[in-house]
């Protein structure tokens, strides 16, 4: 290692400090979820499991969580399909407009959410399309696309086309080659891209505000609407804590799978 020992120690301490600061607000929220004090005031006081208990009866956060998972799932699926198609096209063929398309793909993510939100909202209004789950998935998939695209493109660049030629030499047609040769090799990038796309869609609030239909609440929307109610604030804290704790396992598993799929080294 080219860094001196003191430098490594400082780096380690710094990293621990950053992680601590990163998690402090989460621990604060967790503490609030069992507190009797009102609002978000510091310091929280009192200890009660009442909020957790009544959370089991509340249908609002449960439904909202389900909705968020559903939307994120479909947005990820669409992004995976379209993102890999686009990656296949752009990484293998050179043609006029390739750079332009690359730039266009990044736009939905690079432009602030409020712009994407109002663009879609007025776009749907103009086309006379009612807001629905489909419009929400459309909006989310659009900014998730580029994440899948980039992950898959990067991986495709690493793969040589000689694999395809070898497959053809062995008698496989284009579709067989795709299914049996290309896809498995792309697995890790699809997984990594898909996971990040899912996370992005799950926590998204600004675009969602403008493109979700009437009574439909994703988790961020539910949280937002309950921030205005004192009686529901503890429920919000319980829900946020719950989601973080619960998501640790799937995220860990997904990370392991990504590592395995990429052969232990990305």
């Amino acid at each position, binding site marked *: 290692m080219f860094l001196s020992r003191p430098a490594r120690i400082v780096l380690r301490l710094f990293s621990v400090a950053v992680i601590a600061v990163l998690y402090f607000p989460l621990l604060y929220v967790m503490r609030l979820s069992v507190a009797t004090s009102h609002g*978000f005031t510091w310091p929280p006081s009192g200890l009660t499991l009442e909020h957790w208990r009544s959370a089991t009866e509340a*249908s609002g956060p449960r*439904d909202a969580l389900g909705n968020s998972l559903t939307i994120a799932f479909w947005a990820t699926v669409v992004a995976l399909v379209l993102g890999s198609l686009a990656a296949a096209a752009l990484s293998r063929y050179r*043609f006029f407009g390739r750079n332009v398309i690359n730039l266009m793909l990044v736009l939905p993510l690079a432009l602030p959410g409020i712009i994407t939100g109002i663009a879609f909202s007025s776009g749907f209004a*103009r086309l006379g399309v009612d807001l629905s789950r489909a419009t929400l998935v459309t909006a989310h998939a659009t900014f998730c696309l580029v994440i899948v695209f980039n992950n898959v493109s990067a991986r495709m660049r690493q793969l040589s086309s000689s694999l395809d030629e070898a497959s053809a030499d062995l008698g496989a047609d284009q579709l067989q080659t795709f299914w049996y040769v290309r896809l498995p090799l792309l697995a890790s990038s699809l997984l990594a891209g898909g996971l990040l796309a899912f996370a992005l869609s799950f926590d998204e609030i600004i675009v969602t505000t403008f493109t979700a239909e*009437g009574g439909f609440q994703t988790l961020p929307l539910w949280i937002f609407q309950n921030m*205005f109610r004192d009686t*529901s604030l503890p429920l919000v804290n319980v829900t946020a804590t719950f989601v973080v704790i619960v998501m640790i396992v799937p995220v860990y598993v997904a990370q392991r799978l990504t590592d395995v799929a990429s052969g232990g080294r990305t």
Partner: protein
Amino acid sequence: MKKRYRVVVAATALVLIAGACGSDDDGATDTPSAQDEIGEGEGAVSILAWPYYAEDGSQDPNFDWVSKFEADTGCNATVKYFGTSDEAFTLFGTGDYDVVSASGDSSMRSVASGDAAAINTDLLTNYGDIADFLKAQAWNSIDGTVYGVPHGWGANVLQYNSDVVTPAPDSWSAVFDAASPYAGKIAAYDSPIYIADAAVYLMATQPDLGIENPYSLDETQFTAAVDLLKAQKPLLAEYWSDYVAYEDNYRAGSTVMGTSWQIIVNTLQADDPPTAVDSVLPKEGSTAWSDNWMVSSKAEHPNCAYEWLNYITLPDVQAEVASTFGEAPANLKACDSIADHCTQYHADDPAYYEQLHYWTTPTEECLDGRSDVECKDYAEWVAAWTEIKG
């Protein structure tokens, strides 16, 4: 391939530009007329409401008066909550909702844009029991055509930390005084409609301006109000919009005084231990809000919408809503069951509510009847508000 690609792009572009340049919503010049009778329920209704106005138990299992409505009428209700009047206006404009509980700063905008339908008050079973001073006013009707059914109202009171702010204030000068000892800890309401509060103060302190209606301000009057608010900004700790966060600031002590709602005062006083706040209606009077239920001109379930209007104005439902949210009920019969609440909120107290100027949407046509000048409309209030906040 290159050629085909270019054609595709060009064709798509043409379609888009053609669509974009097509006519947009022409604001309705004739408003949709009210229906004649309540027909058979459509089986569903879509409600857009302030938090605590249409509770169905999903947000908080303790509050639920929508379920009974669904059972009684067979209209399955979906409720969406909004946080600000601007959101209400925008969402209602999409036409996805049948009814909305609109405050005066968005209600008339919805009428002007053709989003709201006229309401046939003959179809309303409880309309007669609603307090007269709330019906057919500037914020829910035009020339006798009713667009909004009163739901409940509340005054914007002056709240202050009773431990810190002594002696107790009795005038809005407390929040406008440049030499205030509480500078940096005062709060104002985060909405362009707050300009009216400055106007109310000017009505008392600068009578030469001739302001009759704080929502009807000509160039000179408007500039005076805006200047007052610009001068106020350095005194402020916050412009509040989320009242839970606002409460937290009083608990923490970073805000000690400002315009507020009775529900906030009550909540803070009910803390354990109680937060030391008190409220007063200053001698200059104040602004207030009166929320009304409006029906969408594009309502998909108009019959269920009317069923909702009739349900939400029932005395016992009004009592439940008023005590949950912390407001004065519109239907005075509700006070039979919540007499103390009604006293505290001055539900039937003319001496109180005559000092109030209820939120109304400012329009170019002066609301106080002057025809020799043009008043500032809401878009200009929004622009001025941005300028005030810097």
